[in-house]
C-alpha cells in the first residue's frame, strides 16, 4: 500500500468505526431519545408511573372542556388508536386547537394525565388560508397525512 492508500484506508476506517459506534449507541438509547410517549404506550404501562414524562398526541375534537371560572381545561389526547384524558391549568400556546398535535409534560394520576406544561407540535404543512379552506371543502382535513 502506498502512503496515500494507507491514509485513505484510515479515513474510511475512522468514518465506518464512528458510524457503527454511534449507530449501536443510538439503538441502545432509542427509547430515551424519544421526546414523548403516545397514549397507546401509556395505557400499555410503558411510560413511567412514578415520575413525570411527556405525552404526545392529537387533541380529540369535541372533548375540550374549559372551566369558565379559571384557566382549567380538560381534553382527550389520541394517537388515533387509544386516548388519554388530560387536565391542565395555565395558558395554552397559540397553536392549541382541536385536532392539533400537542406534547404535554406531567404525571398520570389514576386514568387522568395531570399536565404542568402543554406545547403545540406544529406539522410540516404550510399553505395560505384560502387553500386550507378549499381543502376543507373538498372534505380533506388540514392535518391529513400528519404523522406524530
Amino acid at each position, binding site marked *: 500500500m502506498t502512503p496515500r492508500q494507507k491514509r485513505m484506508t484510515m479515513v474510511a476506517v*475512522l*468514518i465506518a468505526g464512528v458510524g457503527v459506534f454511534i449507530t449501536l449507541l443510538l439503538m441502545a438509547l432509542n427509547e430515551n431519545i424519544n*421526546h414523548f410517549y403516545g397514549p397507546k404506550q401509556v395505557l400499555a404501562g410503558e411510560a413511567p408511573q412514578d415520575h413525570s414524562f411527556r405525552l404526545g398526541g392529537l387533541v380529540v375534537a369535541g372533548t375540550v372542556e374549559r372551566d369558565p371560572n379559571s384557566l382549567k381545561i380538560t381534553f382527550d389526547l389520541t394517537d388515533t388508536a387509544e386516548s388519554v384524558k388530560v387536565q391542565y391549568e395555565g395558558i395554552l*400556546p397559540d397553536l392549541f386547537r382541536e385536532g392539533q398535535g400537542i406534547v404535554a409534560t406531567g404525571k398520570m394520576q389514576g386514568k387522568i394525565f395531570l399536565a404542568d406544561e402543554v*406545547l403545540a407540535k406544529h406539522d410540516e404543512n404550510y399553505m395560505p388560508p384560502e387553500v386550507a*379552506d378549499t381543502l376543507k371543502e373538498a372534505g380533506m382535513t388540514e392535518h391529513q397525512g400528519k404523522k406524530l
Partner: protein
Amino acid sequence: MKLPAIVHKFSSPRNFYVMSGKLIPWFAWPCLILLVAGLYYGLIEAPADYQQGESYRIIFIHVPSAWMSMMIYMVMAIAGAIGLIWRIKMADIVASASAPIGAAFTFLALVTGSLWGKPMWGAWWVWDARLTSELILLFLYLGFIALQASIEDPRNAARAGAVLALVGVVNIPIIHYSVEWWSTLHQGATITKLDKPSIHISMLIPLLLMAVAFKLYYAASVLMRARSELLKREQNARWVREIVANES
C-alpha cells in the same frame, strides 16, 4: 487513487488566488439579487399561513440557515479528508475558512428556531432529538475552530481539524433523520423528502430563492476567506510578491 490533473492545477496557490478572484463577483452579485428578491417575495408577497399567520415567515431565514449549517459541514469534512489523504494545502485552507461561516449559520438556525418556538410551541427550547443534534453541530464547529486555533503548526492544525470534522460527520444524517427516527417536537421535513413538498408554491419559491442566495453567499465568502488566509500563509512566496507588486 489519483485526483484528476485539473484539481491539482486549480488548487495550486497561485492559480487558486487568481481564479477565485475572478469567481467571487459571479457569486456575490447573484447572491445579492436573489437575497433581495427572496426577502421581498417572502416577507411581502407570500400569503400568511393558514395556522401560524405571519410568524411562519421566519422559515425564510431558518430553513436555509439550517440547510447551510449541514451543507457547510459536509464541505468542511470532505475538504478535510482531501487535505488528509492527498495533502492538498488548498483543501485544508477551505476547511478552515468554512468553519466560522458554518458556525454562524448553525447559530442563526438555532436562534431563529427558538424565536419561533416560543409563540408557536410555547417554549424557547426543548431537548428533543432535532434541536439537540443541531446544538451538537454548533459545538462541533466551535470545537473545530478552537482545536485549530490551539495548534501553531498549520499542517498539524489541519490534520487534527480534519479528523475532528470526519468524526462529526456521523451527526449530519442524525440531524436530518432525527424527526423520522424519534418522536420530536420539531416538525418533519417539508421539502427535503422524496414526497412532494408540503408547502404552497407561493411560499416555496421565496424559500428556494433564499436557499440559493445563502449558498452563493457561502461560495463568495469562503473564497474571500480562503484567499486572505492563503496570502497570509504564503506571504514569503514569490507569486505573492509579484501579485502585490502588480496591484500596487
